């Protein structure tokens, strides 16, 4: 089954991981800017990073028929340093026109400090100023509930924000409802330890429904699986859910959310390619649902 991983930090992954993702059905992924496990020493480090995820990684992914998109920001783990944040934010606009950049993200909070919140608001205002979609990280573990509440309340203060263009990620059982009830999209992160397992993600979908919801691997330099989405598909089938429902969650929902960006399209994706080339796919003519046909007619997919 084809799928889109809406959250994958491929700068931390090997080429073998791209191969594994391609072989298990991944046709596209998005890579939010994040914390590499250590703090950068200057804004110049972010310039290099932004070039990596807007130039090098799309080419690397394309070799395996995977379309690569990116979100840009200074991540919440480094948001405490206000001077660094101001300098990085000043540099972000020059990358926003890159063909694979979908918006600002993953912004958010880490320990929920006043400086982190100020940096978060600066990013939101940057996104509004440049009419960008927003991808939001919510904190880990004991900080998730507090951080998600503060993020939702902060976003609701902006009258100009369309919640349908904002995805608040890493939701769990105690935060999912507050995100969905306020009109935002959300993501469930399939991790082996922290965040949620495929089994619990399915439970949440059974309780809250599949609307405005995506699942992702969020694979990075820590314990994580680049094939987390196909593992989720396997568990969905084991639980007895239909391929139609599974396809909605792993393919159609990401297209609905990401397709709000005019840059997002899957035309020509699929199959092995050479660097930088996207030959047309010759697969997947079967079992198309109505929503995909609508997206096809709009030119988002073929």
């Amino acid at each position, binding site marked *: 089954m084809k799928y889109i991983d809406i959250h994958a930090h491929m700068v931390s992954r090997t080429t073998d991981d791209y191969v594994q993702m391609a072989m298990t059905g991944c046709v596209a992924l998005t890579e939010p800017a994040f914390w590499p496990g250590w703090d950068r020493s200057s804004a110049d480090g972010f310039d290099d990073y932004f070039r990596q995820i807007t130039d090098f990684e799309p080419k690397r992914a394309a070799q395996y028929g995977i379309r690569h998109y990116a979100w840009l920001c200074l991540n919440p783990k480094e948001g*405490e340093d206000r001077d660094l944040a101001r300098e990085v934010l000043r540099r972000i606009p020059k990358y926003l026109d890159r063909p694979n950049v979908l918006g600002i993200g993953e912004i958010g909070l880490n320990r929920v*400090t*006043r400086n982190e919140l100020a940096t978060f608001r600066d990013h939101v205002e940057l996104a509004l100023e440049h009419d960008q979609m927003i991808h939001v990280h919510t904190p880990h573990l004991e*900080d998730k509930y507090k951080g998600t509440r503060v993020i939702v309340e902060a976003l609701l203060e902006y009258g100009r924000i369309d919640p349908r263009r904002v995805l608040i990620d890493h939701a769990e059982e105690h935060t999912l409802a507050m995100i969905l009830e306020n009109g935002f999209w959300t993501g469930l992160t399939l991790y082996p330890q922290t965040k949620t397992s495929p089994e619990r993600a399915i439970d949440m979908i059974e309780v809250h429904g599949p609307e405005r919801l995506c699942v992702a691997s969020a694979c990075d330099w820590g314990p994580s699986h680049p094939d987390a989405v196909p593992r989720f598909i396997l568990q969905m089938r084991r639980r007895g859910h239909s391929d139609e429902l599974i396809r909605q969650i792993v393919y159609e929902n990401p297209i609905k959310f990401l397709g709000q960006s005019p840059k997002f399209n899957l035309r020509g994706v699929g199959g092995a390619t050479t660097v930088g080339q996207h030959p047309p796919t010759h697969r997947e003519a079967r079992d198309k649902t109505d929503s995909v046909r609508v997206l096809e007619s709009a030119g988002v997919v073929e």
Partner: protein
Amino acid sequence: MFDLRRTAGYEGFQRVKQAIDNLRLNTRSSAPSTTALSSKSGTQLVDEYFIENRTRLLDVAAYLDRLDRAGDDQTEDDFRMRAFRKALLVLCDASPGRTARIQMVFSDPTTEPLEMLDQKSARGAYNFWQEVEG
């Protein structure tokens, strides 16, 4: 030895309980139907998933036994293990929404931002007892 009965005397018990009760109320008022997308009967869920969840339960028991064998009394007062034992009580009660309520046992229920960064990473449980004990 860990003793679940000790959890009743925790200084932070009321704050934990309040956070859980609040979540229970929120869940009752907002959660959609829990049956709309379920595709397995109770019997099917037991048949399919009992063994793997039995395994998970034994892993938790073995972890507590391991802590016992370590013989370190300080772990009993560690806020993470206090929260862990509190979560076990929620696990054993009969009302639904256990996962969300256990999440709240481990969660910071406040909304006021910290004045400055105190540590880079989360530790897995909020220290409900820090203000009481200093």
